């Protein structure tokens, strides 16, 4: 055995237990004696398999049990219905057990079974003799007279037995009666408790019905309240909707008015710039000088974008053999340029520059650079210019009048302090090369520069 506990010698253990048991027997308190119990009648043997019975054994039972036992013992079978009834009637009418036993034993069936019952025959013959008219009467009388002392003893014993039985029955009856009284009392208590329970159930039912009614009322009240709140909420939503619609319309009207104001201001600024350009007699020679300088650095087919420099600059470029397209943030200025035959779109220059591909332009011009710097920081403007110009592309920036500058001046905002020196340094710092300041006859200056990558003139 694959054991994990120590192996034991069972015989040695049993020897030790035996010694301990002896010691226990000596020292433990004695076991209490078994109380005697009354012997119950059915303890008596009901042996139906034997081949010989004494009369006393067969007669130990009474009435139906006697008849049943007699059949089973003497005939070795249970009694049939007719025989059972006949022998019971015989017993009831005062017949003796001996006569019944004899009837069974000496019947044809009984003789076949051949059960031995010592002493039965003479007693059975005597019992039969009693049945003979007249002689039987005297014979029974004589026998009875002769056995009178025995009968009297039996009678006294019988009296005692019946008195004892009567006493037992009386005692049992009293016990039963007292138990019945207790049962009746319990029954009354039970009935009372049942009544209480019924009352409680009834009260609970009433309470339940009240609760159900209350709940129904609560339901009705709630539904009315929710319905009213719903109508009020609907009214509020509609009011809110009306208010929002009105607000949207008012805002639209304000926006339209503002837009109109802006449009009028834009037209005003464009008109002012036009007037200023017309009054500036040096402008056209200046533009001719700068455009000629630019034409020297670019091929006639070069892609040039101008940022809000005015339609006369585009015309000057055309006269120098270059073609440029322009963008201008002022709708009015763009319209005037288009009316003068220049290709100018109304758009924000910074947005146009952001959308252009890398190296998309040969030339980039902005005569009103200061106005651009209002929208785009200089660092970002120069970096973007580097990006959109192809290698060797030319940039020309000046500080002339433009509508946006007029707008700022009219709004009281200060003009940034930029000049050609600062711009030249800024261009150099941003990687441009061949930086050149051009001075017109009137002393106005522009700055022209080239992106690195090609020294060849376009």
């Amino acid at each position, binding site marked *: *055995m*694959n*054991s*994990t*506990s*120590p*192996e*034991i010698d*069972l015989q040695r*253990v*049993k020897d*030790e*237990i*035996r010694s*301990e*048991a*002896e010691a*226990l*027997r000596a*020292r*433990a*308190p004695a*076991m*209490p*004696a*078994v*109380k005697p*119990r009354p012997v*119950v009648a*059915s*303890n008596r043997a*009901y042996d139906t398999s034997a081949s010989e019975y004494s009369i006393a054994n067969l007669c130990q039972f009474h009435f139906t049990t006697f008849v049943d036992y007699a059949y089973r013992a003497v005939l070795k079978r249970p009694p049939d219905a007719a025989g059972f009834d006949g022998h019971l009637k015989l017993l009831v009418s005062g017949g003796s057990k001996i006569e019944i036993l004899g009837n069974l034993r000496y019947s044809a069936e009984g003789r076949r079974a051949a059960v031995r019952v010592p002493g039965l025959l003479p007693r059975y013959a005597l019992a039969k003799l009693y049945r003979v008219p007249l002689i039987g009467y005297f014979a029974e009388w004589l026998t009875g007279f002769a056995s009178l002392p025995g009968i009297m003893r039996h009678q006294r014993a019988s009296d005692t037995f019946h008195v004892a039985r009567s006493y037992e029955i009386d005692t049992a009856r009293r016990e039963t009666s007292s138990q019945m009284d207790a049962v009746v009392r319990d029954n009354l208590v039970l009935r009372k408790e049942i009544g209480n329970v019924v009352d409680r159930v009834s009260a609970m039912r009433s309470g339940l019905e009240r609760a159900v009614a209350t709940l129904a009322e609560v339901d009705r009240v709630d539904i009315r309240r929710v319905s009213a709140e719903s109508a009020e909420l609907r009214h509020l939503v509609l009011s809110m909707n009306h208010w929002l619609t009105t607000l949207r319309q008012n805002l639209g009207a304000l926006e339209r008015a503002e837009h109109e104001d802006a449009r009028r201001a834009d037209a005003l600024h464009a008109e002012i710039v036009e007037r200023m350009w017309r009054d500036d007699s040096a402008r056209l020679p200046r533009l001719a000088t700068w455009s000629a300088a630019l034409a020297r650095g670019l091929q006639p087919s070069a892609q040039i974008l101008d940022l809000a420099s005015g339609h006369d600059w585009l015309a000057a470029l055309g006269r120098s053999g270059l073609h440029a397209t322009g963008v201008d943030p002022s709708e009015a200025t763009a319209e005037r340029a288009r009316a003068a035959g220049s290709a100018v779109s109304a758009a924000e220059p910074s947005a146009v520059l952001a959308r252009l591909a890398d190296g998309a332009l040969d030339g980039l011009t902005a005569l009103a650079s200061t106005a651009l710097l209002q929208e785009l920081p200089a660092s970002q403007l120069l970096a973007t210019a580097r990006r959109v110009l192809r290698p060797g592309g030319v940039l020309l920036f000046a500080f002339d009048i433009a509508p946006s500058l007029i707008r700022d001046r009219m709004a009281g905002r200060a003009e940034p302090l930029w000049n050609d020196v600062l711009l030249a340094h800024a261009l150099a710092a941003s990687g441009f090369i061949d930086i050149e300041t051009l001075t017109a006859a009137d002393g106005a200056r522009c700055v022209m520069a080239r992106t690195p990558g090609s020294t060849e003139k376009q």
Partner: protein
Amino acid sequence: MKAAILVPVLTSKDAVGADVLAMQRILQEIGVDVRVFCLSATGVECKTWPIERMVEFAGGPNDLVIYHYSTGWPAAVDALRRCRGYRVVRYHNITPPIHFRNVSADYERACESGRREIETVAKLGCELYLGASAYNTEELVQAGAPRERGAVLSPFHRVAEIVDAEADIPLLNELTDGSRNFLMVGRVAPNKGHLDLVEAFGAYVRAYAEPARLVIVGKIDPRLERYTKAIEERIEDLDLGECVMWINGASEAQLKAAYLASHAFMLLSEHEGFCVPLIESMAIGTPIIARATSAIPETLGDVGISWESQDPWLYAASAARLFADSDVRNNLRERGRARFHNEYSVDVLRTRFLAQLEGVL
């Protein structure tokens, strides 16, 4: 080939029923057409047939008939006589009627008539006499069965289901209150020695000042009321009413809890043909103290403390030794588990059963 299993009353819960159903299942598993013939069946799912149709079904020379003999059944004996195939008498033993004298005339007569049939059955000339124990087989041999046709096969059982069952927690809680629990499992019948058991338990309570409890698990039969009453009176006489717990008709969960929470399984039966509760104790690990009568020594082997005497002090001292000596306790537990595994596990019994029928299957 066809096989018929004869049993007077088939129930799923008793020892004979477990044996019958297991044999039926095993034979079906190897492809034999098996039917059970009986007078009545309760609690079983399989269909059963009346004994009158047995010969027609399995009376041929190539058929197998197994008669589970545990009470008198003349119709089965008559049917066996008319069969020409391989006939097996599976003997579970019949309690000698003397145990029922002065307790129940019905039981006494039934046992008497059943035992009267032993000689008839033994002399039928069946091909195999298969006792549930050597004690049973020897009874058949003594009654006239040829010794060379005698064999032993322990009964199939439902121990695995008890081992696998979840223990009843409320009962487990109730039993684990610090008291020493003595357990007896078996129907409340006079051959089971409950009166001596109560005496032995009373001796322990008197001799040792320790809280103890006797747990009597078993079905109480109203027809044996006189015996049950005698046990109650003995308990009352010994003033043990507070220390005895009766569990009438325990469930598997309760049985498991009782075995687990008991410190000793104590059996003082006067007659057992095998005694399944002994192997239940072995499987679950409850140490055994038993009286060495009938088939008990054979079933128990050396895995418990057994005595031929019924001296209550011996049993009380045995219990005290078990409670005090963990080496003895653990060793007996381990021996019990090993014996169950090696001798009584269903796999072992299946192999032995098929080996017994090797010549005919």
